[in-house]
């Protein structure tokens, strides 16, 4: 915190962030600025990574966004660690790496280091780069029957067919943590419940209570980042929209914003306003679906039905307004494919009034259902400190008292011109998450109403522009939280590298924090109160 005050002081004295970086890392790190001073690049050697990481995350309170590994040529990589903070340039910490010395120091043990845990594990799995001193590497995205040494994100990997799998080792045991007399691990999944997404959980228990939960994900890994390579932008957009169908518009928008950023395209004001409108419509539907899931997990049948009715009506309303129930095929680089007619604007305004009132009523009824509250309160708690350390994002972080929201930090689309609140709660339990989902849904309604009341006229798309080569980052607030899409377009105009860091990936990493020391019957409730999509995480 001392250093933080120092920075503010320096700024008052006229020292920019760049000057601070230059002065601090004189001669050890090359500091440069790009993108109109919005990005500060620190080029260093891998050895200096831990020290600079510590400086950024602990002393300056930067948040880690994502790790982008790009294979420039066979066996030659560029590593970029991306950081952000309120009213400050982005920091890109970069270094090159060459095989066969492909070893990078792990940052997992450092301040906010857990935020990079899964990034390092993913890179180890998919690129075959080792992270020194990481406590658990291997068998993460690729499961145990995947052959050793087949790293899908390497250029030399043939992405058309799966490699020949090895026979699972009969002595293979799932990794467990709890060591106590009578302790055993209860497996759940990957096929479980009625309509659950595929995932596997090991509940470690000594009897009645579950001590620890070990999720095993990536059953749905479809290699989206790999199969997007060498595709034209228009085709890669289909993947961006479809890897996570319940937040399709948000991710499609992030992808389009990157393409626009790289190609230097201005999006017309009307398209920007409509993008925010549809993004909020998606958030509203998403949050209603999470509320339905929470009600269902506590077996409160009438509340489930009431929430499900609202959810279905929102799907229908979305279909009427955008032509598709999940907003597929709407966003495009340069703007949108479809406009919103005057009749539809009126219809939306009226329908949303009714939906807001019913959500309010549902929330009020739930607040007075003690049997329901008993199941949610003090269940699945994530403390503020842990949420910060793991870099959790979105409604889950906000329910634990971390008020970060990319719509406020780096306003995109029309968020700069609309007024909205970012609701938070302090307790970090299931009930806090439910309240945040409800309040955010209400904020989405009022945001849509505000946009509708001042919808600018004009075109909905910038016609005919050529896609230029280059690389950029797109950061948006998806329904589940911060999503970072990093895209490099090659000289041939095709996608050369596409890196998606989804909020589900970030938040699933923190799921085990909420699933510690609880009674068996609370598991579905903790799961539902997270409301995190596996498709979005697994990609």
């Amino acid at each position: 915190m001392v250093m933080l005050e120092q920075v503010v002081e320096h700024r008052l004295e006229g020292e920019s962030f760049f000057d601070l970086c230059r002065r601090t890392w004189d001669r050890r790190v090359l500091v440069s600025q790009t993108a109109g001073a919005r990005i500060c690049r620190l080029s260093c050697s891998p050895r200096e990574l831990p020290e600079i990481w510590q400086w950024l995350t602990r002393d300056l309170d930067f948040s880690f966004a994502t790790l982008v590994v790009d294979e420039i040529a066979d066996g030659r990589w560029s590593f970029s660690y991306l950081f952000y903070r309120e009213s400050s340039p982005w920091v890109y910490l970069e270094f090159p790496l060459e095989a066969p010395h492909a070893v990078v120091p792990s940052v997992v043990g450092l301040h906010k280091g857990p935020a990079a845990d899964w990034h390092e594990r993913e890179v180890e799995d998919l690129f075959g780069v080792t992270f020194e001193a990481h406590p658990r590497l291997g068998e993460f995205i690729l499961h145990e029957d995947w052959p050793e040494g087949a790293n899908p994100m390497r250029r030399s990997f043939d992405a058309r067919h799966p490699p020949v799998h090895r026979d699972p080792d009969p002595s293979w045991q799932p990794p467990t943590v709890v060591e106590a007399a009578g302790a055993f691990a209860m497996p759940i999944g990957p096929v479980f419940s009625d309509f659950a997404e595929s995932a596997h959980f090991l509940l470690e228990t000594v009897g009645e209570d579950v001590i620890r939960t070990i999720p095993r994900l990536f059953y749905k890994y479809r290699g989206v980042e790999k199969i997007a390579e060498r595709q034209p932008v228009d085709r890669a957009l289909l993947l961006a929209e479809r890897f996570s169908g319940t937040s399709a518009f948000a991710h499609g928008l992030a992808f389009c914003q990157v393409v626009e950023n790289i190609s230097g395209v201005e999006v017309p004001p009307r398209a920007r306003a409509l993008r925010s409108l549809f993004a909020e419509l998606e958030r509203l539907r998403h949050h209603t679906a999470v509320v339905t899931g929470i009600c269902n997990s506590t077996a409160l049948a009438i509340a489930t039905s009431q929430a499900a009715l609202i959810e279905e009506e929102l799907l229908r309303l979305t279909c009427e307004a955008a032509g598709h129930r999940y907003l597929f095929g709407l966003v495009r680089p340069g703007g949108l494919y479809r406009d919103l007619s005057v009749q539809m604007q009126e219809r939306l305004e009226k329908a949303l009034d009714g939906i807001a009132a019913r959500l309010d009523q549902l929330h009020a009824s739930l607040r007075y259902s003690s049997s329901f509250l008993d199941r949610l309160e003090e269940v699945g708690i994530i403390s503020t400190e842990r949420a910060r350390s793991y870099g959790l994002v979105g409604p889950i972080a906000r329910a634990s008292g971390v008020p970060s929201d990319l719509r406020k930090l780096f306003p995109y689309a029309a968020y700069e011109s609309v007024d909205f609140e970012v609701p938070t709660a302090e307790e970090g339990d299931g009930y806090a998450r439910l309240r945040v989902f409800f309040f955010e849904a209400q904020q989405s309604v009022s945001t849509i109403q505000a946009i509708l009341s001042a919808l600018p006229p004009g075109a909905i798309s910038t016609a005919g522009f050529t896609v230029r080569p280059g690389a950029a980052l797109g950061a948006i607030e998806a329904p589940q939280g911060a999503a970072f899409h990093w895209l490099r377009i090659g000289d041939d105009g095709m996608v050369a590298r596409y890196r998606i860091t989804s909020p589900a990936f970030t938040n699933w990493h923190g799921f085990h924090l909420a699933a510690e020391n609880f009674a068996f019957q609370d598991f579905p409730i903790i799961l539902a109160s997270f409301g995190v999509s596996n498709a979005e995480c697994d990609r």
Partner: protein
Amino acid sequence: MANWVLQGLRTGIKTSTYPNRPDSSPGISPGRPSSAELGSRAEVEDLVQRCPTGAILAQNGGVAVEHGRCVHCMRCSQTNEGAAASWDQNYEWAADAPDIPAAVSRLNRTFGRSLHIRFVDAGACSACISEARQLNNPYYNMHRLGFFMTPTPRNADVLLVSGPMSDAMRLPLRKTYDAMPEPKRVLAIGACAISGGVFGPSFAAAGGVSEALPVDVVVPGCPPPPLAILHGLLVLVGRKPPAKLVSLPSDKVMGQS
């Protein structure tokens, strides 16, 4: 508690009229492109060229649609981009899987009003799952038709599968199928489960569920709306006739039955 009961009663009956009568509520289906005879050669070529997945084909001077490949990118419906495909607002999309005779794929009428379904997510984007989940909401309420979800494959008659079959789900899917008692049927929902969609075939996903399981009935769509999935279940038990998986220019546009 009384408050909840009152709320439930006040809501009234919301259930769809389908399958007894067609449901034409707005927003229940995004519709889909359909085959057409009309159009100049240039228009046909334009449509074929704009379709990124090869679902729209030129045939006999018109356009044919291979519905199993259509991912609802909506490019062919954009009038400001060129010719627009003719659009079918229907939702009865379920069709017999290719090469499976209807006589084999149907469950007999014993199952007509008591059908137990096990769902498996084989790498779906979760839109399909969301649509399948809606079948339990009061609008669609599939229980009224005698269709039930079951948490165990041992009690299941139908395996409902979505997703292109990701590599890691191949084995769990197979094990689930093997655990089901005979007679059993497989219903594949969504473009991914039929053709691999935008994902497969690749190193991480197959080109559809039929690569590992004998699929009986398919429901195209990206995602198929709830009533289309319901239609698929009704087709499986012989309560509704199937639609075609490929519509040709010579076909009449299918009306709602």
